[in-house]
């Protein structure tokens, strides 16, 4: 295996270094950045939309394009997160916490610079992890049964304490609201409609993207509408001196980076989790271990670096179970599975052995796509902040239109477009009453992981509640959740 690895890599490198491949990687990255940056459109949407085009492309071209989309999309969601307080995709929601306050302080360019460099580091490190640790991580991911998924999601809930802002009770209440919203739709275990009020559209549940766009973006648009006409005390200065953050920052934050990237890779490799959980966990962990946790949420680079390095580390992580087991790690890789199969390649245990050349190519493409993404991101970081020069009364209606269109576009559903507006209005009221938005979204994501896995675990073991502490991984994770809570409480 080792020997084969070294032989395959230079060959794959030559294959990828063709003009066609490089051009398609660049096109893919641009498409990914555009989809990622538009609120409501995500890397998943882009990969799904463009997969049919790749049916008749040669394999390396198809992979170049799709990997470009994948990497670009995961990074670019941070652009609107930083500039307009709206994550472009669920995985960038944690970036809002410090990215937006930093932009408000007039340091938008710097925030974007941290975001792109952290994304690049995360993506690149995860590509190497894919090469070296794939079989190891894959076998670990298989250990995850229902009790373990439950335990991971419970650990995710602990993050709520970290993102609740001033009042923990309101944060917990927000998470509960999110989890209740997450129960709408088909009951995951019994398969019967629940809280749908006879509405067919609600049978699929409250879609995450419209909810995210509504709660973050529409809420922000409404809040900004209040400020129109009032002289804004916080004029945003968008002179960008340099986009590339000083290297010494990254030496200072090396442990933070390593931790966040490892969290991203591991969470990415566990099928059914994805970038959202990874980035919140990393953010929370960064805050917990920081010397100055009180500064998190005020606009410090650590918050952005933790979230962005982690969510891009998911890209390589999520490919691990896809390539080694044939089981997609997240929604994007689920679509990629189809794209690979149409090329006559079945991801799975045999792929690594029979077609190592393809795995090697994928790795090189991933590395190149990350470089292209870095170049474009650094260039863009100098210019994106100028968006903020647009007056509120012009920018905010544009954002609102984009959001509602994006909400429609995900499932070509008018109902989803309405959900954006309804949830946005509710979100605005909640924010006015002092409830933070992040826990609501976190509840909406974690609820549908916690509930079915809790019930599945219990059904599988004759309703014995000890099932949650009967395996080392799940017992360990639950214990860890309590330990984290204890330390967070002690530090205030």
């Amino acid at each position, binding site marked *: 295996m080792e020997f084969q690895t070294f032989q395959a890599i230079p060959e794959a490198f030559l294959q990828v270094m063709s003009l066609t491949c490089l051009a398609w990687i660049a096109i893919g990255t641009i498409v990914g950045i555009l989809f990622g940056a538009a609120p409501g459109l995500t890397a998943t949407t882009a*990969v*799904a*939309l463009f*997969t*049919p085009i790749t*049916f008749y492309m040669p394999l390396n071209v198809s992979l170049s394009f799709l990997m470009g989309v994948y990497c670009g999309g995961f990074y670019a969601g941070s652009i609107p997160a930083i500039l307009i307080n709206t994550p472009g995709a669920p995985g960038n929601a944690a970036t809002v916490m410090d990215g937006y306050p930093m932009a408000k302080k007039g340091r938008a360019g710097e925030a974007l610079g941290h975001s792109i460099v952290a994304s690049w580091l995360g993506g690149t490190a995860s590509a190497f992890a894919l090469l070296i640790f794939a079989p190891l991580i894959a076998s670990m*991911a*298989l*250990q*995850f*049964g*229902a009790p373990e998924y439950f335990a991971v999601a419970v650990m995710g809930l602990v993050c709520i304490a970290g993102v609740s802002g001033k009042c923990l009770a309101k944060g917990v209440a927000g998470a509960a609201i999110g989890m209740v919203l997450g129960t709408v739709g*088909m*009951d*995951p*275990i*019994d*398969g*019967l*409609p629940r809280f*749908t009020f*006879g509405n*067919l*559209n609600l*049978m*699929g549940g409250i879609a995450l993207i419209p909810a995210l766009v509504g709660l973050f973006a529409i809420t922000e648009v409404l809040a900004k509408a209040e400020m129109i006409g009032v002289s804004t005390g916080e004029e945003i200065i968008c002179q960008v001196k340099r986009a590339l953050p000083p290297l010494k920052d990254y030496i200072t934050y090396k442990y933070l980076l390593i931790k966040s990237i490892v969290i991203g890779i591991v969470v990415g490799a566990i*099928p*059914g989790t994805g970038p959202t959980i990874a980035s919140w966990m990393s953010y929370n962990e960064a805050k917990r271990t920081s010397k100055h946790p009180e500064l998190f949420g005020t606009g410090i680079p650590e918050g952005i670096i933790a979230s962005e390095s982690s969510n891009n580390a998911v890209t390589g992580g999520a490919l691990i*179970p896809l390539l080694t*087991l*044939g*089981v*997609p790690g997240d929604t994007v890789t*689920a*679509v990629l*599975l*189809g*794209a690979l*199969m*149409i*090329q*006559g390649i*079945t*991801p*799975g*245990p*045999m792929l690594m052995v029979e077609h190592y050349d393809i795995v090697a190519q994928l790795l090189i493409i991933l590395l190149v796509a990350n470089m292209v993404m870095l170049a474009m991101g650094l260039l863009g970081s100098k210019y994106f902040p100028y968006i903020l020069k647009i007056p509120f009364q012009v920018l905010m209606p544009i954002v609102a239109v984009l959001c509602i269109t994006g909400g429609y576009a995900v*499932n*070509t*559903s008018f109902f989803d477009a309405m959900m954006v507006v309804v949830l946005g209005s509710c979100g605005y009221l909640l924010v006015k009453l002092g409830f933070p938005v992040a826990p609501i979204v976190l509840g909406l994501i974690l609820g549908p992981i916690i509930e*079915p896995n809790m019930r*599945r675990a219990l*059904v*599988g073991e004759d309703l014995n509640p000890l099932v949650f502490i009967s395996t080392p991984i799940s017992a360990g994770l639950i214990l860890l959740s309590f330990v984290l809570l204890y330390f967070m409480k002690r530090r205030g």
Partner: protein
Amino acid sequence: MKNIKSNKSIGRMLAGGVLFAMLAGYGSQSLAADFPTRPINLIVPYAAGGSSDLSARPYAEELGNILKQPVVVMNKPGAGGAIGAAEVARAKGNGYTLLNASIGNITIAPYTSNVGYDHTALRAVAQMTDIPLALTVKADSSFKNLKEFVEYAKKNPGKIRYGSPGAGNIQHVTTEGWMKDIGIKLTHMPFAGANPAIAALLGGHVEATVTGVTEAAPHHKSGALRILGITSPARIDMVDAPTFKEQGYDLQAGVWYGVMAPASTPDDVVNALAAALKKTYDSPKVQSAWKKLFLIPSYLGPAEFGARVKKEAAVNEQVLKDIGLHKK
């Protein structure tokens, strides 16, 4: 001057066209020979990139080439395919709105929830692919064949946990019906799709899975899992696994994808579409695309496909009643 004149003549032509179209409305039967005169929408009631979408894309393009009109794939996901299916059921029956139907949204969803349609609101045009189900266990499992599996299950009711792609899915309903027929009890563990169920089997969190053979075949080939039985009438090329039938169990089922149109679509439009779909089906390009996706090509014309839908809807409705999933 010339322009105005030509505008006038265009106007006359348009007026004539409108009149013609109105008359045509009365005598649409006779005009079906010209069908189609504009693009056709093919509604895929699941998200882009899913298996319903992948089954439709290869034939949509070819069908467009044959009919000389584009066939536009539109994804209308949600509610397990019911939102897209309901839209086609409500559409005008003129052949320009078609559904990439599948067994779940036609023969199950109408009986578990109020979706606003059932199979009688739609007309079968042609079945395109059919994928048998597979009962799969881990390669190191002690069950070497179906008989051993069933015997153990008979002695230990509820001890075997089987994963399915979701509650109320065809895999679940078929298995429950089979359990009732032969008198065994397995514990159902629904997952969010076939891949998570397979992952749980690989990790030893369930003892068996019932999924489409598509998802199980690669693992059977690699030696990680063993397919105990597939539900097709005869063995298939894709994978070397025995059928239920040859092991003495009368279970035939499959996840089919096919084209359905609103119930009001006239016969000659349906026949014209079915003929074009047969040509599409025979195209080597479409066949090879399906095979790469592990979809098994299987054509049925309007009559046979319609009979299959009717029969399966009745069977599934009964099973749903038996297992308490039927809407009240």
